[in-house]
Structure formats: structure tokens, C-alpha cells
């Protein structure tokens, strides 16, 4: 059974059909790419999967169970985490706090215990901090634990967003343009990191990217969107040569 399965999803905004007939399956531990020209509907697909939007038609299932129509926090708790196209960190909170917020909902914190300072609550609190520091360590941000997110350099902010997403212990991670604004060296580090996330943590990863080289190098499968429709889907080498894909990006010869 596929980890994530989107079947024939469509979404319209008023008169505009943003996504039409979208289908995708992601197996556990698979690295899948989602590409297409600007405005093709890629982030909209992410929003559909994570529950920000509800599909007008079609179905989305996680581990066989329907998630279309659930609220975003519910979908996250079932195992899908994401980063955002324009980084959406909790700007005025520290790096550690950002990760903590992602991690916390899984621990069974009781309000009364927190407020009255029961021993159980205190113990939970310490464990929480330790676990979150470990997550920061994973992305190399341990030193910056007390730095306010807003003050972090762009590259580190991207990393923090990933750490925060990881804190929610997902089975599927959605990365929205993780390489945007990175230099070639950082891109290599990013690719390694993404592979590590899949190999060591066993995550399935779905990536939206504009950097062709990166996508071709790490993804096992790629789906191409244009104007809300899937125009191609398959292995990187097939996509690279597909005339429809080339046309979507560059226009037809003779135009």
C-alpha cells in the first residue's frame, strides 16, 4: 500500500481551476519530485495534501485512510509535515522554541500538571528540551538554540524550518522549494541532507523545486505540473527527454 495516495484531485478558486485531475502515489521512503513552471499549482497541491484546502473532487489517503477534509493539525498528527515556500518560522521565538512547538503536541502534557508543577510535568519538560536539542543538532543548529529565529541568516532559517517539521515526527515530509536562494555549496549540503533524511530516518519526501539539476539528481520519480494538470510522470531520465515537459518550460519550437 502506498504511503500517500492522491486520486484525481481538483480544486477551483472561483472560476479558476488551480488543480485538475491530480493523482500521485508516494511509497514509504520514496523521494519524489514535483516540478512545473511558475503558477502550475505545485504549492496548491501541497496545500491540498496538508489540509489547507479541501479538494472539490477526488480523494487523498494516507496509509489507506482518508485525509481529505481533515484539518491541517490533524493531518500533521497523522504523519505529514511540511516546510513553506516563503519561510514561515515563528519569527520572534528562539530556534529551540520553534522546534519545541513542533515537538510538543505529541507529549501528553496536562495543563493542570504544568501549572501546579507536578513532578511528572517537570520530568516531561526536561525530556522535551533534550529531545529538541537533539533535533537542532541534526541540522547543525545546536549553537543557535537561543537565537531568535528572525535574526538567523537565511540558510539557517531554512534548516530550522526543516528541524521544526521533523519535530512533528512525520512519515512524509513535504519540502517546498528548499533550495531557493542557496548557493551551489549549500545545494550540495542540502542534497546530502535530503538523502540522509530518507536513508537514516526512513522518511518519504516530496519536493517542489525549480532547480532541475537537484531534482534530477536526488529524486527517484518526478511528476510535472502545468496549469494545474499533470503533463508527465516517471523517472528523471524519461522526464528530461519528454517533449511535453520541454514545451511547458520553454514553449514550442517555432513560437
Amino acid at each position, binding site marked *: 500500500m502506498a504511503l500517500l495516495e492522491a486520486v484525481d484531485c481538483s480544486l477551483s*478558486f472561483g472560476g479558476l481551476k488551480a488543480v485538475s485531475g491530480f493523482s500521485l502515489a508516494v511509497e514509504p521512503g520514496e523521494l519524489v519530485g514535483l516540478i512545473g513552471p511558475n503558477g502550475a499549482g505545485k*504549492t496548491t497541491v501541497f*496545500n491540498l495534501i496538508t489540509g*489547507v484546502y479541501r479538494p472539490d473532487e477526488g480523494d487523498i489517503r494516507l496509509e489507506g485512510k482518508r485525509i481529505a477534509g481533515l484539518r491541517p493539525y490533524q493531518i500533521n498528527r497523522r504523519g505529514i509535515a511540511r516546510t*513553506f515556500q516563503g519561510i514561515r518560522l515563528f519569527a520572534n521565538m528562539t530556534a529551540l522554541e520553534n522546534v519545541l512547538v513542533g515537538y510538543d503536541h505529541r507529549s501528553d502534557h496536562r495543563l493542570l500538571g504544568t501549572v501546579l508543577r507536578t513532578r511528572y510535568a517537570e520530568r516531561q519538560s526536561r525530556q522535551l528540551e533534550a529531545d529538541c536539542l537533539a533535533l537542532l543538532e541534526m541540522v547543525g543548529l545546536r549553537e543557535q538554540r537561543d537565537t531568535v529565529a528572525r535574526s538567523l541568516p537565511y540558510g539557517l532559517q531554512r534548516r530550522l524550518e526543516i528541524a521544526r517539521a521533523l519535530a512533528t515526527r512525520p512519515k512524509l515530509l513535504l519540502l517546498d522549494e528548499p533550495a531557493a536562494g542557496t548557493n551551489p555549496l549549500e545545494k550540495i549540503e542540502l542534497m546530502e541532507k535530503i538523502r540522509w533524511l530518507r536513508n537514516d530516518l526512513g522518511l518519504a519526501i516530496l519536493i517542489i523545486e525549480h532547480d532541475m539539476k537537484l531534482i534530477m539528481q536526488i529524486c527517484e520519480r518526478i511528476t510535472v505540473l502545468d496549469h494545474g494538470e499533470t503533463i508527465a510522470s516517471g523517472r528523471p531520465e524519461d522526464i528530461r527527454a519528454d517533449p511535453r515537459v520541454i514545451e511547458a518550460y520553454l514553449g514550442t519550437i517555432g513560437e
Partner: protein
Amino acid sequence: MDELVQQIVNGLAWGSIYALIALGYTMVYGVLRLINFAHGDVYMVGAMMAYYFAHWLGLAGTPSALGFVLVMALSMGTCALLGALIEFVAYRPLRNQPRLSMLITAIGVSMLLEFGGQRVFGPDPKFFPQLIESHSLLARGNIVLTNIDLLVIAVSLVLMIGLRWIVMKTRIGMALRAVSFSYDTAALMGINVNTVLTCTFMLGSALAAAAGTLVGLRNPKIDPLMGLMPGIKAFVAAVLGGIGNFPGAVAGGLLMGLTETLVAAYLSSTYRDAVAFVILIGVLLVKPTGLLGKPAIEKV
């Protein structure tokens, strides 16, 4: 039956007033996404200014249509300037701050106008001069329809048509619509947003002043806190019609006036003021974008 007609006319008269004020709210919200709390108080200043102009020009004793128009025009002009001043001093500097800051400032300006007004105009109610002589047009039993009632409705209508003409047929109106639609795009297209904002406030404030003058004519007791309730009710009317939507503001205003008057007449007069809030809650819970508004989609 006759009473019903009377109440309907009352409702339409108040409704026209609310509509004029609501247009100001909706215009400002459309361009700035700000609830201009101070707007109701501009209406009060309008009434006060009309009162003073009438006295300074010696028109208080002698009713005349011309005098009335003159006084109203002066009041509208003064309040237009006031509106522009408020925008320039209190809202413009906060354009890049979170909207909450502007909201709080708006509350501050509103309070300043109210309490300042009490200081400057004196806290006691004044009696608006009878600039137009009241003739009853229809008198049957307990019912009295006066020319003033109809005047209020008629003048409001004229002003609203005037506003529509400005918004639809002039360049500044087009600019205003552009800014309402998308602030940043309009700026990028070379529209001087500052000018548009100033004009928006001037237009809205002028309408509020007209409303104040008309109310002075119809309900002569005016005081510095008179803007509080009508301001809130007009705002609710704007929300009811769909905030940011001009025909909505008018529809909302008229509906508000009618509902309120009919409830007060037939259900309970003590709950008159509560009607506005009940409508508000109802709208926000059922269809926050209002009767004629379109839902705004947040880009994620």
C-alpha cells in the same frame, strides 16, 4: 398600517444616515483594511460644525434652503480636512506596522475626538437650529410625515449618487478602486497611493459630516458623544452589506435603519441598541463577508 408606514419612513431616514456613514467605513476599509473607529466621531464633528457655522453666519434664526445647503457644504468641507489630517498624522506613519497598531491608534483618535469634543464644545447637548422649516406632508391620526424626513432621504440619495459618479467616472475614483483591489499592485502601477488615501478619507469624512448635518436637522439635540452609537451601528451596517463593498454599505445601512426602527417600535425599545450587536454577531458567524461581499482567500 399607517403606523407601519411611519416607522418605515423613520427606518429609511435613519437608514440613509447609517448608509452615508457606512460608506466612509467601507471606503477606508477597502483601501487600508482598517476599521476607522474615529469615523463616527467625525460625524459628530460634522453636526457640531454645522451648528457653529449656522450661528456664525447668522442663519440660525431664519430658515432657508440655501442657508441649509451652505451650512452643510461648509461642514462637509471642514470635516474633509479633518479626515485628511487624521489620516496624515495618525494612520500614515503606521502604514508598515501590523494592522493592530493602526486599530489601536484609531481607538485613540476616536477617544480624543469624543473627550476633546466635550472639552471644546462643552459636554451639554446643544440645539441644532431649524434651518429648514418643518412642514408635515401627511397627517393622519398619530402619523406625521414631515418634509424633513423626505429631505434626509433625498439628500442622502443625491450624495450617494454623487459618490458613485466619482468612484466610477473619475480618474481618482478609478485609482481608489485599484488601491482597494490591490494596494501593492496599484503602487507599482504608478498610482500615488498617498493621494488616494487622502481623497478616500476626505470623501468619507465629507459624507459623515453631511449625515451629521441631516441628523441635526431631524433630531436637533446634539452632543459630543452622539457619534458613538451611530458610528458602531453604521460600522455594523457596512459589515452586514459586505465591508469594502459600496452598494453593500448602502444596503446594509438601510437594512440596519429599518430593522432597528421596527424592532424598537414593535418589540422593545430598550433593546434598540442591542439590535445592532445581534446583527453583527449574526453576520460574523454566518457570513462574515456580508451580504454582498466576496470571500478573500489567504495565500498560503
